[in-house]
Each structure stands twice: as structure tokens, then as C-alpha cells.
């Protein structure tokens, strides 16, 4: 299934369902129609036939034996409509499963290929999560609502047709009266959906306060400060305010639902009223009256409720479709889903020339005229305060953002002229928030270079994972995390090594370590850096850190502040310059005097 960029409307659910499961969708619609007709007009006919025959028999106009055929017909109708439900149910789940199989992967594919800026932007991320949370359910809900609406239409029209065949003028009178009524309740049903946003605000507030009262992260403060009573009081206050607001919305919605039920009841009454005279005049039999009334009254029970529910559901689907429209129109990153090239290009140099960059949702330049040059085979360290723009460099290099000003030259050629797959093969980054994939240790490492097979043990060894792997139940094949059966947990430090092994197995000539040690104490951190330095000897490496010390190992240190290089040189040169680097270094050195 492919999503085209178009304006999706709520009625598109029918098309999507049909595309996913054509036979079942058509069958489902047919059965829905049959069911609606059976339950109303046909049952009414069968009842009428039976009652009239029985009456005549009781009046001794017809022989006793005549009753069995009408009885059988009545029972047959009953039988078909009681059993039809199970079949529709089955068709529904078939459509559901097919949608899941075809639609879900399509949504995931679009999601995966989106421009990275949409992922980091709060607003579009909201949209993305809304769309991809449960697309199948949203579509199925819409589909069922349409089917229900279809049933309602069939029920109503089949009863009307039945009446036309009996007393045509009565049908006209009824239609004249009930059509505006029906229209009224349709309109009322549509309105229900619109209310209800404001209560949301209070809900979010109470949800948050509830989190403060029950959450785990703040258990220390909660216990020592003992603010439970006060926060609970506030919670109650907010909850009550939200509840009363919600109450108004609910009242409105009930009022609308019930008034449409009342309108239908009124219509039913009117139908009965109109049909009395034909019965008295002998134009219509008593049995037919009873049959029609049975059908009409059984409709009151469900119709009012079903109609407003299905209309509400359709409006909700409409909202979802709006989201889907916006989602399919989000820009995609060029060959985002490509795998890295098997053979990376030979790396010679990397140069930033006056690069300026601003996050699409940001309000300031994060890189503001950044220039530097890195040569193959050297170790570099980027240091600087938080928010100075260090991590942004890795995002530009890996092609996650391409809308920068200035030039980024790899071997003298502009970065944007390289294919995404070439960039993926060129750089290997261990991120600050590196991914902990809950798959086997082996796959966790191998994903570092999807073209390599069989070198994982060596990488694990170099990353210092031997001991960890020996302790796992199934060695390197043991799944990690709690997702797969038999999964085991690793400590933060052990995960760290897995991430490093992932980088080690990669063929990328440039390795970057982007503060992967934030969760570690400084003692463990310096160990990570010196270990990494050891195994990377001869390659080009870039360390990014705000903690100094181990950065001394670098051939050159680049100090970034406000998106520019403010100092660069070896440790000794920078210390002599007595600038920001020296200040930071001294601040730390102070502790160790």
C-alpha cells in the first residue's frame, strides 16, 4: 500500500479498507445491508404474515395447518439475523488484520524517511506520533461508523418502502414530517465532537500533579519536603475544576444524543398515528401494523444512540485524516533509508568554512561562522560549554540536517554532493544518547556495519566486553533488555562498551565520540576515553566533551563557544594562551591540587 500526497477525507477510510481487503470489504457492506433490511422490513413482513394468518385461523376463516409456513418464515428470518453477526465480525477482523499488514508498514516507512527536522520539532513530532500511534484503529473506527450509518439508512428506507407498498400516501406524510426531523438530528450529531478541548488543559494539569504525587523520580523530595498534602489539595482543586468543565461538555453531548432519540421516537409516534386510520379502514392489516411498529420501535432504542455515535466517530476520523494528510505532506530526507556504502571513500580531510546553522525551530544561530579543518589520521577533541554547538556538528556531518550556510568540504568536495549512503559509510558516531537495541549482543554490535559478518567477537573483545559476555546465559547471542524472551539487562557502563564495539566494527574512517559518558562518573569516563584512544590509534577520531582531562590526549583541541571556534591548538598551547580552555582546565585542576 502506498500513500500518495493528497487531501485525505473521512470517506477515504472506505477506499483504504477496500484496497487492503477488497473481497471482505464488499462482503461486509453487503451483509450490513442485508442485516439492516432483515431486522426491519423483512422481519416486519414476516411478523405481519404470521399475525394475520393466526388471526384468521382464530376467526376460523382459515385452516389450522396454514400457520406452519408463516411460522417457518418468521423463524428463518430470526435465524438469519441472529447468526449474521458472527460472520460480519469475522470479516471485520479480516479487514483489520489486512490493514495492519499493509498499512502499518507503509506508515512506518514514511515515518522512517522523514526529514530529521520533523523528528526534533515538537509540533511535527506531535503530529507524527498522533498519526503513527494506531492508524489501523483510527481507520477501522471510521470504517465501522460508515457501515453503521449505511445500516441506519437501509433500516429507515426499507421501512419507508414497506409503508409505501401498503398505503402510499401514509409514506408521503411520514416522509414530509420526518425528513426535517432526521436532518435535525443529523446536524445535532455532528456537533458533539467539536466541544471538549478546554477540559483537556485541566486534565494535563491534574495528570502532572498526579505524577508529582506518585512518580518515582521525585520520591526523595516528596518524602523529605512532605509536600503531599499541599499538592494533593491542588490536585483536588484542579480535578474538580476540570470535572465541572467536562460535565458541561458531557451534558451537551447527552442532550444532543437524547434529543435525536426523542426526535426518532416522535417520528415513530407519528408513523403509528398515521397508520391507525388505514387499519381502521381496512387498507392495512393489523399484522402489518404490528410488524411495522415492532420495526420502528426497535429502531428508537438504537438509532438515536448509534446515529450520533457514528457521526461523532466519522468526524473524529475526519480529524485523523487531516493529520494523515499533513503527515504525508511532510518533507522526506533524500534516500534516508539507504544502507551505508560497502566500501567507504578514502578520507583525507574535512573542512568547515564559515558554516552557519540554525535549527528550524530554534531562535538563534547554533553555529555562527564555524571554520576548522581536520586531517586524516589525527585525534581531535571538541570542547565547550553546554549548548555551544558541539553535537550539532555531528548532525551536519551525518547528513541529518542539510540546510546550513557556508561550506562543509570532505576531501575538498561539498558534503551535500555526496550521497547519503557515502556519508553513512564515512562517519561512525557514538552518541551521547546512544541507542540500546533490545536485540542480541551480537546484532547490537553487527548493526554498526551491516555488511560485515563474523567480526563481532573481535570488536567485543577490543571494547572490553569479554567478561560481560561470559556472564551472559547464551554468551554473545543473549538478547538484551526485557523485550525478547530470556533477555538480560546490562549496566550503564556495559551498554557503553556495546556502543563502542558497534563503532569499532564499523569500517568508517572517521570515528566520533559525542559525550557518550554523561551518565558515568568522571572516573569511569576517563577510562572510556583512554580505552577508545588506544583502539583507535591510526584512525581519525573526534572526541566531544565538556569535561577536560582526557581530552589532553588529542593532537589538537578545538574550543567552541557560541557556535565558533574560539581557540585551537594542543593542550600546552591552549594553556599558555590562558583563554577559556585554560579557565575550564584550571577550574577542574583546582580539585586535584
Amino acid at each position, binding site marked *: 500500500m502506498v500513500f500518495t500526497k493528497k487531501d485525505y477525507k473521512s470517506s477515504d477510510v472506505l477506499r483504504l479498507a477496500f484496497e487492503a481487503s477488497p473481497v471482505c470489504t464488499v462482503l461486509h457492506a453487503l451483509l450490513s445491508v442485508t442485516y439492516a433490511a432483515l431486522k426491519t422490513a423483512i422481519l416486519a413482513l414476516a411478523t405481519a404474515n404470521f399475525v394475520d394468518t393466526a388471526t384468521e385461523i382464530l376467526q376460523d376463516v382459515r385452516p389450522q395447518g396454514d400457520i406452519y409456513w408463516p411460522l417457518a418464515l418468521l423463524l428463518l428470518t430470526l435465524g438469519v439475523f441472529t447468526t449474521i453477526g458472527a460472520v460480519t465480525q*469475522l470479516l471485520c477482523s479480516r479487514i483489520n488484520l489486512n490493514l495492519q499488514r499493509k498499512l502499518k508498514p507503509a506508515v512506518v516507512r514514511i515515518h522512517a524517511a522523514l526529514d530529521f527536522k520533523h523528528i526534533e520539532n515538537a509540533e511535527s513530532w506531535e503530529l507524527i506520533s498522533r498519526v503513527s500511534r494506531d492508524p489501523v484503529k483510527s481507520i477501522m473506527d471510521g470504517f465501522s461508523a460508515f457501515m453503521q450509518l449505511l445500516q441506519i439508512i437501509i433500516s429507515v428506507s426499507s421501512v419507508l418502502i414497506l409503508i409505501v407498498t401498503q398505503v402510499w400516501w401514509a409514506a408521503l406524510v411520514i416522509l414530509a414530517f420526518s425528513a426535517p426531523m432526521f436532518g435535525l438530528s443529523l446536524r445535532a450529531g455532528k456537533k458533539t465532537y467539536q466541544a471538549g478541548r478546554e477540559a483537556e488543559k485541566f486534565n494535563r494539569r491534574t495528570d502532572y500533579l498526579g505524577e508529582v504525587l506518585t512518580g518515582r523520580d521525585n520520591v526523595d523530595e516528596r518524602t523529605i519536603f512532605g509536600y503531599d498534602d499541599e499538592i494533593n489539595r491542588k490536585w483536588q482543586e484542579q480535578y474538580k475544576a476540570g470535572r465541572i468543565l467536562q460535565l458541561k461538555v458531557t451534558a451537551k453531548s447527552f442532550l444532543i444524543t437524547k434529543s435525536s432519540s426523542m426526535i426518532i421516537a416522535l417520528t415513530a409516534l407519528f408513523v403509528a398515528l398515521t397508520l391507525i386510520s388505514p387499519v381502521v379502514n381496512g387498507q392495512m392489516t393489523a399484522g402489518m401494523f404490528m410488524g411495522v411498529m415492532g420495526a420502528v420501535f426497535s429502531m428508537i432504542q438504537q438509532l438515536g444512540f448509534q446515529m450520533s455515535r457514528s457521526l461523532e466517530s466519522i468526524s473524529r476520523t475526519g480529524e485523523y485524516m487531516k493529520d494523515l494528510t499533513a503527515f504525508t505532506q511532510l518533507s522526506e530526507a533524500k534516500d534516508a533509508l539507504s544502507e551505508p556504502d560497502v566500501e567507504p571513500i578514502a578520507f583525507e580531510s574535512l573542512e568547515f568554512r564559515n558554516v552557519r546553522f540554525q535549527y528550524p525551530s530554534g531562535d538563534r544561530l547554533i553555529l555562527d561562522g564555524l571554520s576548522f579543518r581536520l586531517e586524516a589520521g589525527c585525534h581531535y577533541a571538541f570542547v565547550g560549554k553546554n549548548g555551544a554547538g558541539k553535537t550539532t556538528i555531528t548532525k551536519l556531518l551525518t547528513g541529518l540536517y542539510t540546510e546550513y550556510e557556508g561550506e562543509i568540504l570532505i576531501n575538498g568536495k561539498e558534503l551535500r554532493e555526496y550521497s547519503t549512503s557515502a556519508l*553513512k559509510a564515512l562517519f561512525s558516531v557514538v552518541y551521547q544518547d546512544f541507542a540500546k537495541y533490545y536485540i542480541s549482543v551480537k546484532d547490537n554490535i553487527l548493526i554498526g556495519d551491516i555488511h560485515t559478518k563474523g567480526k563481532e567477537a573481535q570488536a567485543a573483545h577490543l571494547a572490553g566486553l569479554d567478561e560481560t559476555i561470559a556472564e551472559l546465559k547464551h554468551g554473545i547471542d543473549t538478547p538484551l533488555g526485557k523485550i525478547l524472551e530470556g533477555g538480560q539487562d546490562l549496566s550503564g557502563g556495559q551498554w557503553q562498551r556495546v556502543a563502542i564495539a558497534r563503532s569499532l566494527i564499523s569500517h568508517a574512517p572517521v570515528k566520533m565520540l559525542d559525550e557518550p559518558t554523561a551518565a558515568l562518573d568522571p572516573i569511569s569516563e576517563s577510562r572510556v576515553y583512554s580505552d577508545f584512544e588506544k583502539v583507535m590509534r591510526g584512525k581519525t577520531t573526534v572526541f566531544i566533551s565538556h569535561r577536560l582531562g582526557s581530552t589532553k590526549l588529542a593532537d589538537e583541541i578545538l574550543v567552541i563557544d557560541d557556535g565558533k571556534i574560539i581557540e585551537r591548538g594542543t593542550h600546552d598551547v591552549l594553556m599558555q594562551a590562558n583563554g577559556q580552555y585554560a579557565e575550564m582546565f584550571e577550574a577542574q585542576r583546582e580539585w586535584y591540587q
Partner: protein
Amino acid sequence: MSEQKKKYPFFKTLLRIIPLQFKSAPWNCIIENSLAIVHGASFSLSVIATQYLFDAIANAATGNAGFWDCLIPLLILAGVTFGQQIINGVQNFHGIGILLPKSAGGLTDLLHRKLQRIDPAQFEDTIFLDNLNKAREGVRAITMFCMVAFVMVSFYGVYFLTIGVYLFSLKPMLLITLLLAFIPAISAQIVRAKVFTKLEDQSAPLRREYEYYQKTICDREYFKETRVLGGFQFFHKLFSRTMELLTRKQWQAERKTALLQLALNLTTFAGMALSTYILFTATMAGEISVGAFAAVFTQLGSIFSIMQEIVNQHIGNMNRDIGKVVNFIRLLDMPEKSGTEGSPDFTKGIVAEGISFTYPGREKPAVRNVSFTLVDGETIAIVGENGAGKSTLVRLLTGIYRPSDGQVTVGGLDTAETAPACVYQGISGVFQKYQRYKMTLGENVAISDTRTKVDTAKINDSLKEADAELGSDISFETMLSPEFNGIDLSGGQWQRVAIARGLYRANGFIVLDEPTSAIDPVEETRIYKQFQKLAEGKCAVIVTHRLGSAKLAHRVVVMDAGEIIDVGTHDELLSRPGKYADMWVAQAQWYDRAQ
């Protein structure tokens, strides 16, 4: 620690929660039940009214009655129908719009109050957290559960009773209709429950796996890395494969249930057919009127579907929710922390004697056989690597946790014997996971002391002392959360607000736990200096990852694997071989001037 899992059988649970439910909204419970009774009776009333009309119509058809004879029964039926619709609307609105949210508020309050008195150590137990989550969901479940129980008696009970009386009055034999409706419904439920429980057991791990693979492609946590590694194909393959397995399994189960459902529907049909046959014979024998036949026959569908509604939907929901309800009750039944009153006298210091502590649900103790004394006015630094037990020790010393073994006295009060609020009276702190409350700046500071009136002058002083330069556009009323239309602070600013918070609370004993999150060296140094200032003249404990900063303390406690392996001044520890000296050397080498 592991107590026997108490059993909570269905009816016992129901008896436990009905009083809870009543207490949470007493009048609404009474109103709800009264409405349900009228609602239930109105259904039967409408059957009788229908029969009345049909009889009149049958007479009219044979020329024995005129238009006006039919009009009155019709108007009665119309009246009953309208009344029924109104009652139905009012009852549903009352239940969903008023009773449910009101009770949820009351029950949540109960839960919040209970949590205050539960041992905070429970929050480190993932099983507890899981149960807590379910218990929070249980709040709504309890009301739903009780409402169903009420409705069973007051609505369905009344409905079946009145319709039963009506059927009995027509012909005693017709009562069997109710039984015929009941049997297929109950058997359907049993079968369904079995098949679906089995399906759920089989597909839950698959679903978890499949949802996870989607995350590895789509979630923010993974997005960047999966893209840059080019791992899409790899995970998408896994994703599609598990989904294929999952949908296949689901389809098998669906097909099976559909077949079973079909069989059960046939049983339902057989029941309806039999009932119709009984009606039929009664009509042909002249025992009931044709009008009664038609009235009851048109109602047959309702009787059967209402029976299915009770059994399938309501009992099904009850079965589904009982777990959540039990979790709620189990939480209410958890032991509470309590103790004698008292007030701390910090001249007596803080004393730990042979304390050990094991987290609930774990085997290895996090702190083992630790003893030491913090005298009045002394600052102690605790150092050690990640996972050495530093934070646990701090929680024991402040009385947040009670030791599994040994004794902790805070200002002369035994933390295991004293009411928690009394122990905490003179304690304040800046914690490792300091909170960024999505509240106003003033609230963010004053939250550390809510028992006394908010003192704006004190908030101001605390902020000043914490060096919180937040800018001129930020007042006490500024909301510190973009989510609630406020602004956000930087990491460093938040840290200072947290320090101000610790200062705002009057204290004789302060705990300062260093944040591990990324802060640059200059900021780091600044925080240490502030910690030192805060600790002056009080009992103070500083937890630190930077060995050098331990110099600020009077004494240093070195921890490793839950035990204290060394205690002494910084200079003492450096002068003797040991973990502290090793760690020192490892760190200091980077800052060696000679290099």
C-alpha cells in the same frame, strides 16, 4: 521482606470496594440506583403498553374498535417511550458524567494519601511501580466495577423481575424464555474468555516484540542512530516478520472464535425459536391474544440481547478489570510507616550503627553493615563509583529508608521508631534527581516547606543565596514550563532553583547530592563552592563524584559495593594506600602540571 501474596477472590473484593465506592460519592450512588430501578421497570412497562396498543389495533382491524380506541393506547405507549428515553439519558449522564468522575476524584485522593504513608523504598521496586500504575488505572475500574454490580441488581434485576412477572401472568410456561436467553449467553462468555486468554498469552510477547521493532525505527530514542547506521532494512525486516506471525496467530484465533460464536448464535436462535414456539402455541390455543404475541415477540430480541449484554459485556468487563481493582486494594493494604512523635536535636548528631539495607525485590544488599557518626556541625563527603551505594546510604541517614538491620538516629530520633514527618522536620537537601516542577518559580522554591505560610521574602533570600540570576523578566509568578504556557530554564538555572529550594526549608541537617548530568567544569566548580557554603555550621552530607571536591568536607567516607571501606580526612586518605588514593591518582594525572 517478601510477604505472602494475599488472595483476593471476586466476591470478597466486591464487598471491599462497595463501601469505598459509597464513601467516595454517597448521594450519587443512591441516585444512580434509584434511576436504574425506574429505568429497568420502564422497559417492562413499554412491553405492556405495546400489547395494549396491539390488542386495540387487532380489534380495530376486525371492526370492533375505532380510531379513538387506538389513539389512547398509542398515547400511553408514546408516554412510556418518551419517559424511558428521558430516564435512560438522565441515568447514563449521571453515571458517566457525574458519578464516575466524582468517585474517581475521591478514590484518587485515597490513593494519594495512602502513598504518603508507604515506604519510599518501594519506589525502587519495578514490581511495585507496575502495581502502582495498575492501581491508578484501578481508580476508574473500581467505579465501573461497582456501577456494574449496582446496575445488575437495580436495573437488570428489576427488568427481568418485572418482565418475568408479566410473562408469568400471560402464561407461566413463558418464564422459560428467560432461561433460554441465559444459557447461550453465559456459555458464549465462558468460551470467549478461554479462547481469548489463550490468544493473549500467545500473542502478548509477539506484540511486544513487534511494537518494539517499530520503536527502533520510529522512536526518537532510536531514530537518529538507526538512520545513520542504515539499520532501517534490518529492523523493518524484523518488524514485518513478527507482524506476519502475530497477524497469523490473531487470524487463527479470530476464525476459531467466529466459528464458536456462530455455534453460540445458533443456540441463541434455538432459544428464541423455542420461545416463539411457546408463544405460538399459547396464541393458537387462545391463551394469549394476538396482540400479546406480537408485543412479546418484538421484545424477544431485546430480552436476548440484554441478557448477552450483561453476560458478555458487563461480566466480561468485570473480569478484565478485576486485576486493576485488586491492585488498588492491595496497595491500600500495604503496611504504612508510622511511629512516635518527637523532635530532633541535632546536637546529638546523626548516628548509624551496623546498618544494612536491601531493596524490595532484590537479593543483594545495597548497603551492608555500615556504621558511622556525624557530629553536630560536621560535613561529611561520601565518594565512590557509580553503584557503590552512596545514594542509598544518604536515604538511610535521612530516614527516607528504614534500615533492614541496625539503627539510624537523626538528632536522637530512631528513624525506625519515629513518625516520618517528625524525622524530616529539620532535614533539607538538594538531590541528585532534583525536580523541575512544572509550576511557578515561587512554587518551585516554596514547595520544600508547605506546612508554613508561603514567605516571599524568604523565597527571595533563598534565590539570592543560591545565586540564581534568572533575568528581570522572570517573577515568582512565572510558570516554569513551556507545556503550561510558561518558559523553560537552562540546566544551570534549574540547578540553582533546586539549591534555593533546599535553602528555603529550615534545617539542621542538609544533604547535597551532586548531579551527574552534563555540566561544564566552571559550573561544576561553582556548585561545589555553593554546597560548601550551604553546609557550614550544620550537619551535612555531600555526595560527590569528583574526588577533589571531597577536600571540602571534614571527613571523607569511601564506599565500594555497599560497604564503607575507608573513613578519614582527605589528607589521611591520600597518605595511605587504598581505593581513595588509587582513584585520586587516576583522576589527578590528567591535571598534573608537570605533564
